[in-house]
């Protein structure tokens, strides 16, 4: 119910925002078109009507799943975006995995030995991950790994296989080598965040009585860390990462542009350049839906991890 309201409000903000940005006619109509052609063009795109009427038409179509046709491609905007979605999703998932697989162990380690040199290096590195701009790191990575060393391809997406009805490239070597650099680039910020969260969580949990009690039970240190500590720090990590995954998808725009990755972000940037309103609106609407959906998934994950938020009680 709440989510539905969020979607409706967002649709209005997005629609009016895009309406204010600029007039697509100036860009789309060729310079040598005469007044009559202009009028026809405006009429065919429905831009002659007042704002609220345009919005009404948009909403009535949107509830039927039609977010309008692209001005440029003359195809449904929704289909155009969904067509590019798997590439972006793949990039985001790989980036997320990198952030988790490297972030949690590094963070836990830094949390266990906060005074050690390695731990301090990890923390300094994570500050770089936070503060260096993504596009700059991306360009530097291309310079180093693609141009100077020639290990990895600099742009584009590799071979695509259809797996479970989705075009996925990561399972072939060619595809993997293409996705690696943009994914690392995209993951860098999240990786730093996971490291910091895991470290803070570890330091807090290690001082809890239940860790001392676990030691008093004679448990091996490995079990204490892998079960008792890890399960507790996963709660904040999953919450934040879940919410950030939406951001990862939505704002992969920069990385996709730098690495010419054929995803939704690239499409968005191109469409903004051309003031292709339906695509911009459709993109933002999809992102809103994505965020609402991810919130739901995070809540479910949360209840799996933390028994205290589960609603049902044991039957006595």
């Amino acid at each position, binding site marked *: 119910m709440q989510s539905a309201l969020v979607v409706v409000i967002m649709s209005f903000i997005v629609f009016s925002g895009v309406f204010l940005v600029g007039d697509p006619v100036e860009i789309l109509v060729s310079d040598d078109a005469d007044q009559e052609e202009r009028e026809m063009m405006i009429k065919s795109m429905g831009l002659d009507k007042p704002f609220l009427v345009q919005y009404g038409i948009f909403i009535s179509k949107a509830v039927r799943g039609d977010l309008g046709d692209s001005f440029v491609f003359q195809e449904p905007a929704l289909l155009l975006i969904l067509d590019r979605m798997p590439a972006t999703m793949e990039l985001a998932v790989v980036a997320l995995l990198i952030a988790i697989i490297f972030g949690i162990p590094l963070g836990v380690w830094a949390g266990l030995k906060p005074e050690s040199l390695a731990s301090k290096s990890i923390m300094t590195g994570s500050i770089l991950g936070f503060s260096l701009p993504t596009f700059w790191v991306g360009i530097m990575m291309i310079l180093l790994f693609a141009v100077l060393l020639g290990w990895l391809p600099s742009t584009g997406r590799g071979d695509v296989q259809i797996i479970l009805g989705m075009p996925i490239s990561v399972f072939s070597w060619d595809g993997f080598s293409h996705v690696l650099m943009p994914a690392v680039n995209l993951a860098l910020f999240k990786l730093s965040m996971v490291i910091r969260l895991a470290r803070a969580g570890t330091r807090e949990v290690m001082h*809890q*009585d*239940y860790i*001392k*009690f*676990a*030691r*008093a*039970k*004679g*448990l*091996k240190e490995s*079990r204490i860390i892998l*079960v*008792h500590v890890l*399960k*507790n720090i996963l*709660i904040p990590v999953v919450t934040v990462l879940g919410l950030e995954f939406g951001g990862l998808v939505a704002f992969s725009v920069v990385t996709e542009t730098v690495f010419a990755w054929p995803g939704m972000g690239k499409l968005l940037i191109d469409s903004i350049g051309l003031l292709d309103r339906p695509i911009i609106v459709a993109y933002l609407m999809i992102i809103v839906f994505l965020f609402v959906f991810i919130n739901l998934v995070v809540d479910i994950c949360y209840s799996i*991890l*933390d*028994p*205290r938020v589960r609603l049902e*009680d*044991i039957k*006595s």
Partner: protein
Amino acid sequence: MSFSDSPTLEVKDLKTYFFTKGGIARAVDGVSFSVGRGKVLGLVGESGSGKTVTGFSILGLVDEPGRIVSGEILYRGENLVSASMGRMRELRGLNISMIFQDPMMTLNPVLRIDTQMIEAIQAHEKISKDDARQRARDVLGQVGIASPDERLRAYPHQFSGGMRQRVAIAIALLNKPDLIVADEPTTALDVTIQGQILYEVQKLCSQTGTALIWITHDLSVVAGLADDICVMYAGRIVEQGSVNSVLDNPRHPYTHGLISSVPSRNRRGVPLAQIPGMAPSLLKLPKGCSFGPRCPQVTADCGIIPNISMLDKGRQLRCHNPLDALVSPKLKD
């Protein structure tokens, strides 16, 4: 020396210091005592007197910046101070177990009770999960938890404080240890539950021959439970002996003060006596006897730390001006 005669645990001149930025805190400063098979030792003192640190020292669980500086902790003749980390891990939970003060904090909130019990068994012996669960269930029943089968599948937050402490006690009992260090295990519980738990623990000790160190500030608990008693003040034991002789006839002014501050039926209508002042900070201990500034009997002699004097029947005392037997109040009745 025959095996049965030797005490389960013997602590000799234990010193555990905390090296903090503000200086060295001598949390435990030359403590000696011993507990025999099936015996209960009461370790009594105010907050900050070093009794909890003494307990953690026995299990080798003193956290940084604390460290055992010197002394011996002999478990069946084996010195635990010099034992390796691995050896200590083997002993913990199997031979020596501990019950913590705050039952709300001792169980991991995100793990089920069965997980936390079974892992304590499997850490020490090769046993199938089903057998371990069976044993966990039996012990839960033993400490008075109804329908243990169902309770095993629950999470800590589904238990009350008293139930959680029972679970913690059950975990301490799982491997039938020789020694249990119980750090104020009933302080956070209401009086009815406290009575039940005391009764059960006492029964278990006499049945299984487990030695028990009961750390508390509650003299009335010790009076009913312990065989021997050590009264700690600012990191040192000021008086020790059998529970009856010490409580009936306290010689140290501090012990006397503690006993007088327990409400009693015999002194109806009389304002409750209290010890003036506060327990000193371990970083700024007074010179000489640390109890001096609060002591009604203080003299010039007390500028020097008193030595331990041996009295009859194994009683020990650390005081220059011990009290006469006659001024002592009675705790019992």
